[in-house]
């Protein structure tokens, strides 16, 4: 069942077509990755989903049509845009109290259990926290909400690998269940591939893939061929992902009539690169 239904959505910024008649959906109870190059339209699509920007077309969340700047969407949807958007003027304790007071879906019990192991200093000002600590605080606050839809827009941008890893593991262990849906945008697909159920690839404002990870992995294969056999790829849609002196690694459709001396399942980064390169054939 579709939690988010996006119909004929087009968004223009002056002369730039950021979203070009997008039709897609996000299924309920799934962890969905929204990937694309920088400027592909990921953030714009997310802004449209939560009504932060005007657009042509229609978007529904849980059957409710999204309106421009309507606060009600956040009653059951949480959005983490950027860790640095926390209000640095507060002390941690005061900020938690404020958040508790303004969000009707705040689950204090869950918050306490998450906070207990966080090591966050209650008396410190948010602006004085490290980026990693801010991430923890933001995440704990959001994960303590009993909302059914979580949207993350490049949430780990600028974080080191330790915090990035912790971020996604915490989301998986403390937030996700089959009644909750998570939409994560990133351009570092390898970082989230282990938690995803579905993948949406966007390029130049168009959705070029929206499928389950299981399906995607059956569509392609990663083969290693002799560098001198490169000509065999001429009539086959492909993407060379590693190029060595004697051998090359290349993603091709599983049904393609070509074999290599080594064959493997491609990862999502490979599939992403392949899809971008062959967008017209796969769209």
């Amino acid at each position, binding site marked *: 069942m579709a939690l988010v239904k996006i119909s004929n959505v087009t968004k223009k910024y002056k002369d730039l077509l950021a979203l070009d008649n997008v039709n897609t959906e996000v299924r309920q109870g799934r962890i969905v990755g929204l990937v694309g190059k920088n400027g592909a339209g990921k953030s714009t699509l997310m802004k449209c989903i*939560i009504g*932060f920007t005007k657009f042509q077309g229609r978007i529904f969340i849980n059957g409710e049509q999204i309106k*421009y*700047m309507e*606060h*009600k*969407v*956040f*009653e059951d949807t*949480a*959005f983490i*845009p*950027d860790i*640095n*958007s*926390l*209000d*640095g*003027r*507060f002390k941690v304790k*005061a900020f938690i*109290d*404020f958040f*508790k*007071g*303004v*969000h*009707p879906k705040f689950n204090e019990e869950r918050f306490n259990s998450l906070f207990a192991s966080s090591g966050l200093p209650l008396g410190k000002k948010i602006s004085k926290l490290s980026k990693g600590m801010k991430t923890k605080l933001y995440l704990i606050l959001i994960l303590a909400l009993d909302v059914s839809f979580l949207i993350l827009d490049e949430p780990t941008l600028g974080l080191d690998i330790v915090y990035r890893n912790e971020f996604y593991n915490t989301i998986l262990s403390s937030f996700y269940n089959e009644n909750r849906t998570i939409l994560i945008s990133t351009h570092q697909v390898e970082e989230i591939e282990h938690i995803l159920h579905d993948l949406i690839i966007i390029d130049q404002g168009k959705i070029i893939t929206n499928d389950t990870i299981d399906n995607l992995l059956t569509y392609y294969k990663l083969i290693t061929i002799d560098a001198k056999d490169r000509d065999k790829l001429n009539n086959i849609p492909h993407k060379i992902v590693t190029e060595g002196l004697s051998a090359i690694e290349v993603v091709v459709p599983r049904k393609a009539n070509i074999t290599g001396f080594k064959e493997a399942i491609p990862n999502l980064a490979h599939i992403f690169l392949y899809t971008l390169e062959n967008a017209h054939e796969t769209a």
Partner: protein
Amino acid sequence: MKQLKSLIKRDISLNRWSLLLPVIVVAVSYLFILFIDLKWGIDLDNIGYSMEGAVQNFPFMGLIGVVIGNIWISGAMLSLVALVILTPNALNDNIKHHCEIFYKCLPIAPWKIVLSKVVSCILIPLAIVLILAFFNTWIAYLFLGKTSVISLGTLLRFVGSAMFFAIPYLLLFGSFFIFLSGVLKKKVLVKFIGFLFGTNILIKIFTSLSGLKIETLSYYENKWLLNPSLTGPKIIDVDLLVNGFMDKMSLDSGVNEISKLVATSIFSWDGFCLIFAAIILLTSSVYAYKVRKLD
């Protein structure tokens, strides 16, 4: 209600130093007076002054002076805190601190945000200044009221009525700046003053070149503020005030009469127009805040 309470608490916490400014000013003033008293001593009974050759009763005249000064200073402090510091930043302080998007991602109705600003940026400063004004009047009466023919109750009523009269104006100007803070993302006061001065200068230049008789914006603004309903008489009828005062048998009842007339003058078409304009501005602020584009 819980949301509104949290929003107001947040605003008080973030603006606590601005809100405490009148308290700090008053405390410093008392400390200064205390210092003078301890260092050189103040003998109130032996302070006198002569006016037109006759020695005046200093404690009583001093009391009147202090109370009137108290009203002016309270008004100035209220304007400074509410209209210069707080309301021009009411709806855009989150932009300045790069956290606007965080607040926009919360399920809070914009009208609650605007209402919390009215409470924290207008009503709370008003309450603080009013309490201080009463306190100052009481202290002044304690030291200078020995020979006063006006009772403490009358003086408190006088101070209270002056502050009460300021409420619709405060609401109007406060709402105006809250609205501007919803429309303009930064430097609201500077832009507003710049606009006002700029327009006034342009009008002056235009009238001197064209010979047409057009008044400045400030002129029309002041004119409207004195008679918001445009019905003719000013919001405070000075003749009525003087006559009411003169009709009374004693100074005490005369001052009471002034207080009554000042306080009740806002229950008029003029007062209604001021409040109505404030409501329109606040409603517009809700809309401006709601549809404002995120950076």
